[in-house]
């Protein structure tokens, strides 16, 4: 199973884990969940779509990251996906 992790728990950052999966699953935990959960999910979905990735599980633990950070951490986690990290 391939897995990739990027980001941190610093304020304004997010820790994103991407795991190989049989379908698309997205889990979001955020300190601004009430205000921005939908927006975070949208960013994750569109980024995955652009890469044609739909068989992954994405776990996003968010500390108030802006969209660009969510996108960057997701892209980094995907680029880092390998069996070594499992």
């Amino acid at each position, binding site marked *: 199973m391939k897995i990739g992790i990027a980001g941190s728990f610093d304020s*304004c950052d997010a820790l994103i884990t991407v795991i190989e999966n049989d379908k698309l699953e997205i889990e979001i935990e955020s300190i601004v969940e009430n*205000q921005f959960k939908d*927006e975070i999910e949208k960013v994750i979905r569109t980024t995955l779509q652009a890469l044609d990735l739909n068989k992954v599980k994405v776990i996003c633990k968010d500390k108030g990251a802006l969209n660009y950070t969510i996108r960057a951490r997701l892209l980094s986690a995907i680029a880092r996906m390998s069996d070594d990290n499992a």
Partner: protein
Amino acid sequence: MKNSLGREVPNSFTPYMEDSLTSFTPIKEKDKVVKTEFLDSIKECFDLLKLSDGMTLSFHHHLRNGDGVLNLVLKEIKERDLKDITIAASSIFPVHEEMCELIENGNITKIYTNYLSGPVAKTITSGKMKDLLIMSTHGGRPFLIESGKLKIDVSFIAAPCVDKAGNGNGVEGKNACGTLGYAIADLKYASKVVLVTDTIKDKLEFVDLDRQYVDYVLKVDSIGEQKGIVSGTTRITRDPVGLIIARNTAKLIDELGLIKEGFSMQTGAGSISLAVTQYIEKLMIERQIKASFALGGITSYYVKMLESGLIKNLYDVQCFDLEAVKSYKNNQNHIGISATEYAGPHNKKALVNKLDFVILGATEIDVNFNVNVTTDSNGIIIGGSGGHFDTARGAKTTIITSQLLRTRLPIVKDEVTTITTLGKDVDIFVCERGIAINPKRTDLIEKLKDSTLNITTIDELLKKAHQITGIPKNVPHKDKIVGVVLASDGTVIDSIYQR
């Protein structure tokens, strides 16, 4: 029923109206006590006072998060399972967590306070208290008491030191906390007064609490923890964003010509405010300017300026650190004042009305300059007015400082979650991405028209914030009202909802 701000007001309360005038009919002070009785058991004290269901008990918060007196009384209420008690505490802190259980069990059903943080705030927000939370202001509280709108059956006043006659002060004893400004109305107007102390001396250096009002002195092992009076916000920020805001605020104050001989200020104990104070101090030294007074909660930074002759007088309603306590005790130009003298809306000579400027913080500010310091953006209670409303109303220029963004949450909103301070009393908002002036202050806008500071509008700041964060979704609240926010005259500005 809605008030003139368009906010919901529960029945039986008076809605805030734009042009309403504060009418004040004082009630009589309590009868003089001939002989103060000394007790050493809380049980005996409760027995003698015939404490029973439905009574109102009051407390001050000068020991802040180090207070042990409210907790002592809570324990005895629990022990006796008294019901429907109203607590009127000038502030409630995390240290008062024990209150949560009493609220849930119906021992405490109503609370008056000016500031509320920690577990009790969460319990009340979640709708567990039977009656309402009533959030007043530091000036509004003595107004309610002195006009009989808030009747106190017994006031338990933490007194760091008491003499054998029953006089008390805040400057001696192992838990000295300085001035006792918030307790003065309680002392004079509660039906019964108990000074709770851990130190009794033959003679006091001076008297803050006159024995003629004191029915009982209750001697206990400890009234709390002196370390807890340092509020934790009283350090100058090293945060670069905070410092940028502070520097621009100081420049702004200077460009407005507010640093002039004999000026007066209240800058508070927030970390940004303290940095502003330091910049102001530098300007004062450079130009050899002296202030006539500084007001409010007093920190070591003001004490230093008093001692170096930059400020003529400190008017102190509350000491924020131990240096302030020491100075209040030893320096005759460091003067203790009551909450009424500080900010009473019924007191024409209230010192807040003489302020040239005040610097305050914000959890949220909206495009109408209304400020919220009562709840967070999820509607959870995290504080309260304290003197925010009163000083904004009284001071000639009111400046709000805050970061524009708290992680992803914009501080500027279309509408604040809860109105604590009215937009018409707020003149300027300073954040790291610009300075917005209330459009009704055309005089200030004119003065700043050639400024090199980044002067913008509040709408622009909202737009900027949204560009960075995206537009936050409004967080829905439940229908149930758990509390009301009062103006200093007791009318309702806003309601707080269950979450």
